[in-house]
Structures are given as C-alpha cells and as structure tokens.
C-alpha cells in the first residue's frame, strides 16, 4: 500500500468510507426511502421545528413532491382527496404539537370513511417526551379512537419496518388512516436501510377465505327473491368492485340504490338505478328499501343516515350483508346471510355461482312498481326564472361537464343536492365527507384530486359556511396553479342547520345566519384567481362554461334562493317511508 501514490490512496480511502456511509442513513432519509418504496409521489404538509430533518431530507429528494398547504388540516384533507380519487394511500406530514392536533379532524374524517391515509407527525426528542415540552402533544393517545393504528417510533432501527407496516395496515382489509409519530432525534440518528420484505403482524390478519356455504345461501336467496334491492356503499368503491356490482345488477335485473359513499359504484344513468337512499334519498329508493324482500348490502355499514328508525328498517327483507369488516356485520342491522370478505372477491364468487344457474327470478311486478314510484316521485324542485335554485346550478354543472368531472363537496345542503342531481357513471369521482360530515373538507380535497389528475376537470361544490372553514387553501391553489373550479351555493346561511330549525324548531333560527361574509369575488382577486358573482339564473350556464374552458381557478359565487330546502327528507330517527317533501 505504501507504494501507492498518496493521492490515489486517499481516493481509495474516501471511496471505502463513502461505501460505509452510504449504507447508513438518517431516520429522515430512511423515512423518505421507505415512502419511495411504497410508491409515494406526493406528500402534503406543513413544516415546523420537529420535522426539520425530514424537510431537509425532502429538499435533497428528487422523487417526492411536497405540497405546502396553509394549515395542516388542508394537508390531511388533500391527502384524503388524493386517496379517494386514486385508490392509493394519501400521505401527509405535520410538525409536533399544534401541527399534529390540526390533523385530528382530517384523520377522524378518513377513519369514518375508511380512506387509506398515512399521517406522519414530528414529535419532540425522546428525552423531552412526557415533560410537556414545547410543542409536545400526545398525538398517538389523542388519535387512538380515530386511527386504524398508530405508532410512536422509539428506535431508528424500527423506522423502515414501521413505515412498511403502516402502509400495509392503511391499505389492506378495511382501509383507514395510520399515524406515525417520529421524535426529532430519531430522524437524525443513523441506521442501515432494511426494508423488510415480509411483515409479521400477529394481531392483524386479513381473512382471504370466503365462506362458500354463505355464497350458496346468498345466491339461493337472490334467485328466490321477488322484490330484491342491491344497496351499495363505499366498500364497493374501495375494493374496486364497480364492475362486479354492475354485472350482478344487470345479470339479475336487480334495482340498485346507494349510500352517499357508494355514489358512482353503479352508474346513475342505468334504468336500474334508484339513486341515493336514506335521509335525503329518492322516494323510490326509500320505498324500495321499505318494501324489499331481499336487501343485498354491499360494502355498506347501514349508517343511521341511511336506515332511519332501525326497528322498522327493511323489516320485510332478508338481509345479505357483504363487508370486509366482520365487525360491521350485524352491528346496526341484523344480517340473515352475513358474508365477510373483500367485496370484489365475494361478488366474483357469487357471480360464478349465479352464472351456473339457469333460472332467473321474475321481477316484472317489482320493477314496474319501482318504475311507478320513479314516475310519481321524481326528484324535483320549484323552477324559477328570477331566483337561482341551487339544484339548477348542480344540474348545469352536470351538463357543462358532461357528467365527467371529479366532484368534491363540503358538507351541508349543497352536498345533498350534489348527490341528488349530479349523475355519475364512474366510481372515485364523488369526493365527499360521509361519516364525519366535515365542513371544510371539499376545497383541500379538491387540491389532492387535481394534483392526482392534472388534466381532469375538478369541481368543489361548496356552501358559504363550509368554504370559509378552509379558505386559506386558496393560497395553495394559487401557488400550485391548480385549475379547480369552486362553485359556492351562497345562501348566507348555514343552510342545513337552518333547514332543521325551520322544520323541527318552529322556525326559531338560532345563529345560522351569517353576516360579515367576504365578497368572494374580491377574495378571489386577492389571490389573483378569477372570481364571478352570479345572481341571475340565465348567467349560471355562461359562468360555468367560462370557468370550465379556462385553465385558471375560478371561484363562482352563486347567490341562490336562501329559503330552499333539501327534499325529500326523512326526519332523523323516523322510518324511511316517512318522507317529507315527496
């Protein structure tokens, strides 16, 4: 060795040490490598002290795009929108303390709707944990009730495995949010990067075996049914089973209704489709549910917004309940034939069995009855050429976008009108907070959707109350030049609550009227976005056409009739044949 020239020797030593070093990575680098291994392309986040090393690693990373939001709640909802529209897990990152707590609503929202999400939070250094340190919050404790699982990483050697497990848990079985809390010093400590090919989770096993006896029973019940109804929910969307649902319905000529979360799993444009069921469902769907002798619940959880009074719900029906989560079977509604399993797999098995049978049930009387209801009780509202009716705006959005847009909503009357009046023929196009009913979800979710689908038309349909909840995200939209169209159905009220006060509290309107609203057109202009105020029905269409044709973000402030209510309506807790505003 000594004979080697000094320079050459130094170079060799340097290379060897490089080699040694490249086998060791900081926790932050390990985190990003693991995210890359999971195929993550985009993360939504907001920096802060405890995540500085992660942000430093992001700075050097070329494969992952970071979208800086204006509030951590925007980040988690955006990740959620990304996940809903793609089926891939959404990823968000926030710092410790308030950053982490600002994720709580978004995590709860994803949990209720079973959306795969991985939330990464910074935490104070291990030595400072449990001492009420600056920006310390027990986020794993806080999120225990609203995550599928959560991790506090205490050793950098565990980090890669934890990330792998987190993605596995978030995306398999019934999907859901998983949180990884990483103390700051873990992100600077070094370890080698070992991405375990196999995971060993003793307490988490996915049941892949579908009970053939149950399939047989279900098929039999379906062939014997006189008044069957398929009821499809978010689980069908999550498992990618839209095709199978369609095959099943069309093969047997079974009518189909859906929950809010199931919208798009079966096309609204098919004769067999009855639209949404439940509190603001169509009359025909609710009547069909009321009279059905067989209800086939597919990836649904018979939520109270669907069932109304549980004791009278589908009281004449045999219930087949297909869901991946065995805990859902029989939780709210008794299932005569429960089938635990992935919806897509179960339906495939079911279709196999059904195809082998030559008899088809005769449903003519039932389908005629339903056709009669559809004719007698269509969705309707009073048309006006003076006032803009909110339903009219939705119909116009549908026409202008030819039913092909990604539609995000906030929560309130506009959400229900959208579910009612925007016909969809594909899953993952309707992005809405179902279980938690989170106002402020739509705008950031639309960012996630637009980033996942840069060439598609994305609408956020909002109310004036909801849009103010996360309006700071207009800055993120401006920064990333996202051509989202925001349609505000502005009635200067918290309309849905106002509606309840009108109908159930004798018109005692308590704090549902909002004065002090901004001028949304000026607000748009403050961001350099396009703003239009629309006050006459005839201006609705041109405004929408302008917005859709333009590559800019438009904020469309539709001043709609503020007395309009969402009908039909089943009062909370009433039987679903008890319908107001038929």
């Amino acid at each position, binding site marked *: 060795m000594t004979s080697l020239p000094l320079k050459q020797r130094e170079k060799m030593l340097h290379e060897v040490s490089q080699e040694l070093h490249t086998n060791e990575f900081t926790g932050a680098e390990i985190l990003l490598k693991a995210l890359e291994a999971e195929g993550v392309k985009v993360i939504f986040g907001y920096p802060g002290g405890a995540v500085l090393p992660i942000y430093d690693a992001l700075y050097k990373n070329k494969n992952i795009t970071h979208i800086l939001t204006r509030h951590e709640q925007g980040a988690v909802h955006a990740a959620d929108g990304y996940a809903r529209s793609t089926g891939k897990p959404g990823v968000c990152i926030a710092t410790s303390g308030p950053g982490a707590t600002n994720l709580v609503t978004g995590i709860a929202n994803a949990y209720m709707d079973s959306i795969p999400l991985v939330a990464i939070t910074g935490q104070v250094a291990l030595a400072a*944990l*449990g001492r009420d340190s600056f920006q310390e919050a*027990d986020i*794993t*404790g806080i999120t225990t009730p609203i995550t599928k699982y959560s991790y506090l990483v205490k050793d950098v050697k565990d980090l890669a495995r934890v990330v792998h497990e987190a993605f596995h848990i978030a995306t398999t079985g019934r999907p859901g949010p998983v949180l990884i809390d990483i103390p700051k010093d873990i992100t600077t400590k070094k370890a080698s990067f070992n991405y375990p090919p196999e995971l060993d989770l003793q307490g988490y096993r996915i049941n892949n075996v579908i009970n053939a006896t149950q399939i047989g029973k279900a098929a039999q019940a379906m062939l014997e049914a006189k008044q069957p109804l398929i009821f499809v929910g978010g689980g069908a969307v999550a498992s990618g089973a839209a095709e199978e649902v369609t095959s099943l319905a069309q093969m047997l000529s079974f009518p189909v209704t859906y929950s809010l979360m199931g919208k798009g799993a079966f096309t609204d444009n098919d004769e067999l489709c009855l639209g949404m069921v439940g509190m603001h469902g169509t009359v025909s769907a609710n009547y069909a549910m009321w009279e059905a002798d067989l209800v086939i619940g597919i990836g649904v959880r018979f939520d109270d917004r669907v069932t109304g009074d549980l004791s009278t719900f589908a009281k004449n029906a045999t219930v087949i309940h297909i869901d991946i989560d065995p805990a859902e079977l029989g939780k709210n509604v008794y299932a005569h034939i429960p089938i635990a399993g992935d919806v897509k797999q179960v339906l495939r098995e079911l279709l196999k069995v059904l195809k082998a049978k030559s008899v088809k049930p005769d449903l003519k009387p039932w389908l005629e009855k339903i056709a009669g209801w559809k004719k007698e009780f269509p969705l309707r509202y009073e048309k006006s050429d003076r006032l803009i009716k909110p339903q009219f705006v939705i119909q116009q959005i549908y026409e202008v976008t030819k039913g092909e847009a990604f539609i995000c909503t906030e929560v309130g009357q506009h959400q229900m009108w959208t579910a009612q009046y925007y016909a969809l023929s594909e899953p993952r196009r309707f992005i809405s907070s179902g279980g938690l009913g989170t106002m402020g979800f739509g705008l950031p979710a639309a960012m996630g959707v637009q980033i996942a689908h840069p060439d598609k038309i994305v609408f956020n349909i909002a109310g004036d109350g909801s849009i103010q909840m996360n309006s700071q995200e207009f800055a993120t939209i401006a920064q990333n030049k996202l051509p989202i169209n925001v349609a505000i159905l502005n009635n200067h009220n918290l309309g849905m609550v106002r509606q309840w006060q009108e109908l159930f509290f004798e018109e005692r309107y308590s704090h549902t009227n909002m004065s002090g609203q901004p001028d949304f057109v000026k607000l748009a202009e403050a961001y350099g976005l396009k703003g239009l105020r629309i006050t006459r029905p005839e201006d609705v269409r041109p405004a929408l056409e302008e917005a859709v044709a333009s590559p800019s973000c438009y904020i469309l402030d539709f001043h709609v009739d503020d007395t309009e209510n969402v009908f039909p309506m089943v009062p909370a807790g009433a039987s679903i044949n008890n319908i107001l505003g038929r």
Partner: protein
Amino acid sequence: MKHTLTVLVENKPGVLTRIAGLFARRGYNIESLAVGRTENPAISRMTIVVEGDDRVIEQVGKQLYKLIEVIKLTDITNDEHVDREMILIKVNADPAIRGEIMQIVEIFRARIVDIGRNSLIIEATGDEGKINAIESALRPFGIKEVVRTGKIAMARGAKSKNGRNQEAL
C-alpha cells in the same frame, strides 16, 4: 427498581383508560396492573407495579393525583405488606408424568383445577417469586398456556388504606 402503588379511584367508566393513557403519554413502564372493587362499590382499588427510579416514581404519583378520579395513592413498596398474584397454567401431562407434576403442585401448595386427557390446569397463588418459581418448575413438562392476574397488595396492620383521607406520597 420496582414500586408497588395502591391507587384508590372512583369507580367510573373511563378511569382505567385515563390511567393507562397517562402512563403511555408520560413514558412510564407498567409492570402489572390489577383492578377491582373495594368494600365500597363506588370505589375501585388498583395495584400498579411500576419500574423506575425515585424521581420517576415521584412524578408518577404526582401525575396520577392530577387525575380528578384518583382519590388516594400509596407507595407501599417499603411498607410491610402482603402481595399476591394468581397464575393459571395449562401444562402437558401424560398419565405417565402426572405424579411428578402433582408433587410440584404440592410443594407449591397449588391446586389442580381441571384435568384433561393430556393436560392439567394448575392454579397457584403467591408472591411474584413463588409464581415465577412454579412456572419454571413446570416448564420442562411443556407449558401450553399461562395466564396471570398481576399483583394485588395490602399493607399489614389494622390501618386501612381505603380511608377517605388523602395521604401524601
């Protein structure tokens, strides 16, 4: 070192969650936790075994006291006290070796509470040392299943720790 704390709490839903959450959040290590009603049905008593130095144990006590439902807390580690734990052990027991097992059972003054074709369930009560000892004495026979209650403890003497007055730790 290990400390044995007895904690009197109001018998209300969620108390156990609050205490478990506190330990997790503050990073304290629970060795075991046993809980049950006292002579007063409105009050439960927990026996918690915690690992930690004096400073940690002092914090544990103070933080526990901050929970509204915690009425009284005593560290009885250094007091004269009786502590007991119960274990159920399911052990392989071919008829041929049953005699040997019975002997061990007798030595530990344990009991056989169930007899299967090839197995026995043995119940033993005692302090931690004894419980550990019987478990290791039975291990060579092949233990199929073990369940332990965790420690419960009571100070010796006439004075009651379930009294209403708080005592400083």
